[in-house]
């Protein structure tokens, strides 16, 4: 059995088992266990030479995304164990809901990993659709009016997005079918890449527009981002972490696979301007919206929209350097943002509120947590020596060299968001610590549930990446950057 099969099968089996396991402690441990097996199997991909079959494809593009997804899946499951213990203690969740939550968590990991490794357009679509369904169910877990409204909005918007993506997929098949004949070959990535030069570019263009809008909805690109802040704010925080850290990446991965086809075709429209426009719109809109946010999870959700805008802009620019920056930024954003959500999850639990103005002085009341959150926000704001600085620096310099006019809004957007982050992080981390919402006890008296290891593991990786990138990773990024055109 190949490593990819293990990667995809483990969470699926895990979901089935966790659906039957009573007791949240055992469930949380098993959840960590299955995630660890998945990560081990994905690390095996680096050792055994990956090959592509009819079902799965592993190449320079998705190998690091698979490993990243499995890694964040594991760290989030560790964070989640502490998080849910607290939610049980305060009575916000019960055992029945948690059994469902753990099963859905593994089911979600299964759909993510399947979407990343599938060698078939149809299978990838089904996986992304499944990811939508599982996350909708998890966002509505608390069953409050706000969470159900958020899940409903998420479902309707992403349902339409998913439908448009399927239309794009069907169009893609229709474009390929005259060249490659009817059957499965015309829906297989590896086959398509070999024949795409002969495919008529006109239908390809139309298909890409639908795919960009469809999967772009799931990436959270403006103006299709309305679901994202609500879904992040109202669901359990571990879900916010995997939504931002993984799901947005996977949706973007789908768009980029199709962009590769267009680039290999040669005659199709350049998708660049479309992606640049959507990326800049997301960046500027989210940057401005950050100032008016009062809910801390919503605040960082808007920051995710901003970073997805930056990444989409990078791939829209194209060329080896900008593509490299985009690929690096995908990884850095995913690690940093999930780390921030871990910290925010703990902060919300110790203070009992999500409102920014009620949370203050975390570095005083909980030094490890407060400084961790501060480091995460410094990293996401794009300050050195963290990895996000490096990818943003690469992108800005390459944009200045090629399209100085486009660099202007890009820099403005990054700076606007930077201002908002600095402003809010001061409120969150410094000053006098407040009291717990409801009980009025001092915040410092409430200990952090669970471990801060996931938070610091992510921050360490982002720091290392900012200082030194391993050779093979650079080589993969360069290969993929060339394929992306």
């Amino acid at each position: 059995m190949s490593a990819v099969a293990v990667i995809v099968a483990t969470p699926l089996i895990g979901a089935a088992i966790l659906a039957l396991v009573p007791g949240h402690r055992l469930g949380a441990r098993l959840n960590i266990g299955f995630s660890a097996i998945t990560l081990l199997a994905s690390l095996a991909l680096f050792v055994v030479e990956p090959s592509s079959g009819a079902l799965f494809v592993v190449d320079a593009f998705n190998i690091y995304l698979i490993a990243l997804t499995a890694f964040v899946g594991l760290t989030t499951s560790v964070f989640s164990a502490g998080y849910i213990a607290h939610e049980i203690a305060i009575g916000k969740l019960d055992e029945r809901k948690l059994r469902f939550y753990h099963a859905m968590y593994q089911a979600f990991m299964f759909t993510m990993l399947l979407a990343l490794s599938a060698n078939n357009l149809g299978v990838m679509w089904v996986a992304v659709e499944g990811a939508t369904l599982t996350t909708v169910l998890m966002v509505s877990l608390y069953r409050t009016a706000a969470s159900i409204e958020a899940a409903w909005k998420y479902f309707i918007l992403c349902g339409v997005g998913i439908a448009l993506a399927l239309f794009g997929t069907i169009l893609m098949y229709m474009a390929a079918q005259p060249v490659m004949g009817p059957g499965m070959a015309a829906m297989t990535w590896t086959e398509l890449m070999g024949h795409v030069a002969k495919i008529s570019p006109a239908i390809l263009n139309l298909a890409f527009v639908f795919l960009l809008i469809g999967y772009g909805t799931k990436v959270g690109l403006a103006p299709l981002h309305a679901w994202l802040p609500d879904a992040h704010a109202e669901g359990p925080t571990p879900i916010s972490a995997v939504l931002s850290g993984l799901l947005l990446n996977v949706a973007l991965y789908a768009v980029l696979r199709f962009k590769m086809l267009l680039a290999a075709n040669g005659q199709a429209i350049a998708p660049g301007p479309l992606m640049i426009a959507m990326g800049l719109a997301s960046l500027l809109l989210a940057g401005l919206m950050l100032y008016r946010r009062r809910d801390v999870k919503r605040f960082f959700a808007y920051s995710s929209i901003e970073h997805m805008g930056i990444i989409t802009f990078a791939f829209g620019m194209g060329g080896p350097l900008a593509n490299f920056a985009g690929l690096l930024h995908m990884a850095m954003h995913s690690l940093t943002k999930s780390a921030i959500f871990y910290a925010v999850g703990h902060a919300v639990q110790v203070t009992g509120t999500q409102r920014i103005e009620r949370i203050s002085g975390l570095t005083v009341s909980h030094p490890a947590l407060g400084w961790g959150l501060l480091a995460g926000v410094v990293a996401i704001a794009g300050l050195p020596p963290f990895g996000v600085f490096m990818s943003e620096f690469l992108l800005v310099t390459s944009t200045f060299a090629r399209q100085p006019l486009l660099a202007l809004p890009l820099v403005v957007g990054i700076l606007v968001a930077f201002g908002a982050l600095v402003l809010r992080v001061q409120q969150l981390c410094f000053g006098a610590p407040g009291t717990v919402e409801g009980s009025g006890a001092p915040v410092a008296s409430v200990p952090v549930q669970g471990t801060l290891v996931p938070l610091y593991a992510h921050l360490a990786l982002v720091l290392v990446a900012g200082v030194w990138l391993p050779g093979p990773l650079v080589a993969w990024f360069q290969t993929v950057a060339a394929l992306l055109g």
Partner: protein
Amino acid sequence: MSDLGYDAAHMLGAVVLLMSFALLYQRRLFSLLNVFTMQALALTATAAWQAYSHGEPHLYITALLTLVLKAILIPVALHRIVVKMKIHRTIEPALGIGLTMVAGVSLVTLSILLVLPVTADATALTRENLALSLSVVLLGLLMMISRRNAVSQVVGFMSIENGLILAAVGAAGMPLVVEMSVAFSVMVAFIIFGIFLFHIRERFDTLDMQKIESFRGESD
């Protein structure tokens, strides 16, 4: 393909589109569900006809799934929900009927103008099928935008999926995997929608989305 095969496929596709128009101006939920059933029946006939005329037996499965799920199970279940929640009152389209019709006709024109130039080298059936299905998808979107009621939004969503199946059965030799997944996703989507409808009724005592939208985490 014979002339009859072409004509029949063309006509059945057009009936599906016609039903999309009919959906747009239904004021009552029951008649909305009835029209949706008819659209599903027309789609069943299209899929079965393509299966017969192209000799692709797997499309019979698509036809069967469409028939069982969309023409029977889902309308019956939605009918029950409507009765149970006592919302069989008049529904209010966000736009007037006349305006909705004008918008619908423009969308169909748009999709024809969009599809015909880019498919110049495809067969006539593929082109027209694509134009028809894109129209159905766009009309479904229009319906989701113009309606406020959750049940009509679900129907709009499913009519988008009908358009997708229409496109998929028209694409020669499209592997089964997609049709299956579409049929499956409709089922799953419906279950979830059902859960949602249940919770929304439980929490809000109304299906009017305008009221639910005022329940926000914060005002912005």
